[in-house]
């Protein structure tokens, strides 16, 4: 009866040991927690652990497996890994393509600066292109060292969302 839960890079094994009223005993990666666990309103919980007070807000992201989570001091993205999630993750892995990077903008914008041309060698972290969108400028950098294989953007011109702008082939 244990599940895996993903938070950032960590995948934790969670197991409910007992749950009576507000008293919850649960283990995370083998570590036991005795909690006073109260649902205070929709998506909002108050947890006392050794009298430390945690106020946890859960905002579901598409369905019941993923949550944006707020505590007083932090924000997280958390995912419950059930069978469906495992299947999807495995399928993604198979498709992963790690020999090149396609740089594109998630929303429409305008090319402010284009710093590379086809055939240029780029270092990891080097700024390749600057896009202005919603009045803000965003710098796009090369994720790894490589060579510019193609450039589809022109300085001063508009680009569509998800349009291929620059392709970098990794060395």
């Amino acid at each position, binding site marked *: *009866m244990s*599940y895996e*839960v993903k*938070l950032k890079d*960590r995948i934790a094994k*969670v197991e*409910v*040991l*007992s749950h009576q009223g507000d*008293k*919850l*005993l*649960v283990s*995370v*990666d083998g*570590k036991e*927690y*005795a*909690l006073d*666990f109260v*649902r205070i309103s929709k*998506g909002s*919980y108050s*947890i006392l*652990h050794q009298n430390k007070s*945690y106020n*946890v*807000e*859960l*905002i579901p992201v598409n369905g*019941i*497996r993923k*949550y*944006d*989570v*707020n*505590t*007083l*001091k*932090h*924000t*997280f993205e*958390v995912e*419950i890994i059930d069978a469906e999630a495992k299947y999807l993750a495995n399928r993604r892995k198979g498709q992963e393509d790690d020999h090149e990077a396609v740089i594109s*903008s*998630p*929303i*429409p914008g305008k090319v402010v*600066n284009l710093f590379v041309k086809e055939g240029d060698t780029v270092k990891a972290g080097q700024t390749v292109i*600057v*896009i202005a*969108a*919603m*009045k*803000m*400028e*965003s*710098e*796009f*950098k090369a994720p790894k060292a490589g060579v510019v294989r193609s450039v589809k953007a022109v300085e001063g011109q508009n680009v569509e969302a998800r349009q291929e702008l620059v392709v970098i082939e990794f060395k």
Partner: protein
Amino acid sequence: MIKKVLVANRGEIAVRIIRSCREMDISTVAVYSDADRSALHVLYADEAWHIGPSPSTESYLNIENIIRTAHLSGADAIHPGYGFLSENPDFSARCREEGIIFIGPSPNAISMMGDKITARTTMTEAGVPVVPGTKDKIESEEEALKLIGEIGLPVMIKASAGGGGKGMRLVTSDKDVTTALRGARSEAGTAFGDDSIFIEKYIEAPHHIEFQILADSHGNVIHLFERECSVQRRHQKIIEETPSPILTPERRLQMGEAAIAAAKAVDYQGAGTIEFIVDQDLNYYFLEMNTRLQVEHPITERVVGVDLVKEQIHIANGKPLQLRQEDLKQQGHAIECRVYAEDPDNNFMPAPGKVTHIDIPYGVGVRVDGSIYEGFEIPLYYDPLIAKLIVWGKDRMEALERSRRALQEFKITGVKNNLRFLERILHAKDFVGGNYTTHFVEENKEFLVNEFSCDNHCEDIVIITAFMEYLRKIHKASPKEMTALKNNWKDYSRVRSVFKL
């Protein structure tokens, strides 16, 4: 007297303007594009009129539609907010022609300050310092050497035809002058076919400091002190504060007087801002004038104790200023944090989308101006500024500590945002120290994108809570599955002995 104001803007500034109008018992008319039917300014105003499709060129920048709406709605004045048509001299002129009060300066003042070269000349004539250098092309080496001698090092040599850094040379030492000049000219010649250059004083550690002014139609001009705006990313301000932590009282006085002189030089009326670039020795140079309300105006409102929108309206009504320079004081310290819908982990790319949840900070010294609500879909057509946090403290340290507390409580879920990035800035040593320049964000990049480390156990608590919510929902979705689960739990508790707190 103005009775009905059309607000030719959207977002937080439109809402903020409507608030002050409501307090003055002035009716308000919101205008909206297709994308903004559900925007907060539409919900909050007394009236709302559609003015065109989503792209701002066809709606918020569409002078004809806005003028027509003003007439149809019977508005006697237009407030342009900031951005959009606020610094468009044609719009100001058009309002005049149509007999509508434009809550802002004359077309002439906007034009003079809008043109960099006219503004520079006007300021020089008014005795306001500008960045030393020339805007005329220099064609000979002798001329260049003479000018560098006058300006003093360091200087920046720039190609007249330039762009993209080509033909640019920074000169910091006498021995490099000739080499740099020749290099710049040759590079410029190769790149642009024109080897003429400009020379400008290079400000090594620049501060961006601006002064708020108010000018009425009776020739009275006052300044409401400065705002320090050096925390910028790609020329976009992120955090502003007042007073500036680096200004001395003497320099503040001088710059305030310069700001008043600048406004008088263009016969300015309304609220405006004189931007200066200031070096480490507190030399200050006129940069430009913003002939409108600024995004960061609330920090001035807080420390000076004035509602700038109401002042704008009084001025537009032809009333003389009630505030007198000698009565004005900076009370305590205020900091503004701009909340953008953008992703600091992904090139600060704007992040439109649906806001699913908001936690807003409250309590002593905290003001939030915003334009979002739970369920609101941030459109991708406009500025990603979604809220401003304005915090006051009796001194800079209190304002800083209170801002941290407020940011910690501030949560916007559903869209990426820069709240945690702002919090990092308030913990950066250079910011805390108070002597930061416009290079601050670049210089502190690594520190700023790091995350705050989690308390002991706090990750585990988050994991547990999300998991319990998941179980709860499964239970609701399929009672059968949950019954099995419950029995399982019972088994576990039997095996492990029942736990009691």
